[in-house]
């Protein structure tokens, strides 16, 4: 039995201004992965490659243990997707759009779909162009959840969603993975409450993988470090990422807090970081380098 819902290996894609370079990570079934990185890091490119919307220049992608190009149709039966922008037909109503999509899926359930419409407060007869951005995302999510998918892929799903619904999504996604056979991958460039339920975090920057690990181990190994500027000798600098110096001191992030603690003896503040801290300092570090 295949344990990985998604496996990306040495994935490559080159554009004039941007290269996705040998990206590798995997996602086991039963878990939720947050795919983070600044705008333009390559998150959407990666998702488009998984969905085979663009052609890869190298590497492999397998979904449910199947090749994402060779077994494309079979895989897509089992994927629910939510994109950051609306690509449904503006001219149609929710029900009409559903009528177009539903016949493509073997596992489509009108009952589920109607339940989600009700839960999400989506009026079935409303035209897509009359929906707010948040409602469009909700509609997209309702479609993704109504065909018995095993893998939900969401590209920047939280943009345009209010905090109340974001919290609802946490419940929906957590319920989705209750049976241990399904998985969720969502990308985001701002860290939100969605990360609360993420089991794994894959962080890319400039088309390169920074890390792909359990969220717990990342938050345990990374730390926010603050102190006076006089402490910043070469040895300390080497252990830090994205150092920000101001007139009164410095702030930075270390990726190995244990090592940093054992090597560094002095007056320094070591704090638990947020994912946003880690992302911010790492991106800054790569820009300065």
């Amino acid at each position, binding site marked *: 039995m295949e344990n990985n819902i998604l496996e990306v290996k040495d994935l490559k894609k080159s554009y004039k201004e941007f290269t996705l370079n040998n990206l590798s990570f995997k996602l086991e079934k039963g878990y939720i992965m947050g795919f983070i990185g600044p705008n333009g890091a390559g998150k959407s490119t990666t998702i488009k490659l998984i969905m085979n919307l663009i052609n890869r220049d190298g590497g492999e992608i397998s979904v449910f243990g199947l090749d994402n190009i060779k077994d494309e149709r079979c895989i897509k039966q089992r994927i629910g997707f939510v994109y950051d922008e609306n690509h449904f037909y503006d001219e149609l109503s929710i029900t009409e759009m559903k009528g177009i999509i539903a016949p493509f899926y073997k596992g489509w359930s009108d009952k589920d779909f109607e339940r989600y419409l009700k839960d999400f407060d989506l009026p079935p007869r409303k035209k897509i162009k009359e929906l707010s951005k948040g409602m469009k995302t909700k509609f997209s999510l309702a479609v993704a959840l109504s065909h018995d998918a095993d893998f939900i892929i969401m590209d920047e799903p939280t943009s345009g969603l209010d905090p109340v619904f974001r919290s609802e999504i946490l419940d929906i996604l*957590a319920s989705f993975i*209750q049976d*241990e056979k399904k998985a969720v991958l969502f990308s985001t460039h701002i860290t939100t409450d969605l990360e609360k339920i993420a*089991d*794994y975090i894959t962080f890319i920057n400039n088309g390169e993988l920074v890390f792909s690990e*359990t969220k*717990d181990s990342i938050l*345990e190994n990374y730390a926010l470090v603050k102190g006076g500027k006089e402490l910043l000798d070469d040895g300390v600098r080497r252990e830090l990422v994205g150092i920000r110096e101001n007139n009164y001191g410095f702030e930075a992030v270390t990726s190995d807090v244990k090592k940093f603690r054992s090597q560094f003896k002095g007056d320094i503040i070591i704090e638990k970081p947020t994912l946003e801290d880690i992302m911010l300092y790492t991106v800054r570090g790569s820009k300065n380098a």
Partner: protein
Amino acid sequence: MRIIISNSSQEPIYKQITSQIKKMIMTGELNPGDSLPSIRNLARELHISVITTKRAFEDLEREGLVETVAGKGSFVSQYNREIIKEKKMEMIEEKLANIVQESKSLGISPQVLQEMIKLLYEEG
């Protein structure tokens, strides 16, 4: 059963779970044989990651407080009270050893120390 997670606490979330469940076992709020929520269910309810919850349960299992039966879920272990008491005793012994050591270095006699402990007991 009550578990409260603080996102602003410096204590990791899995430790917050283990310490709260431990406390419930010790105070008798949870009894041997009581079933615990499933890992995934707890994660969903608390809006935290499955892996975090899993880790908390694994720690509790390692300490012998919780048993997990495949397909049936997790339960409070049968002999946990004894285990906890034993553990607590060990901890107290250890602390007392420290106190004795320090008392010796300050030249405090065992009688004085006993008197101090007695007073503290009565106060509490």
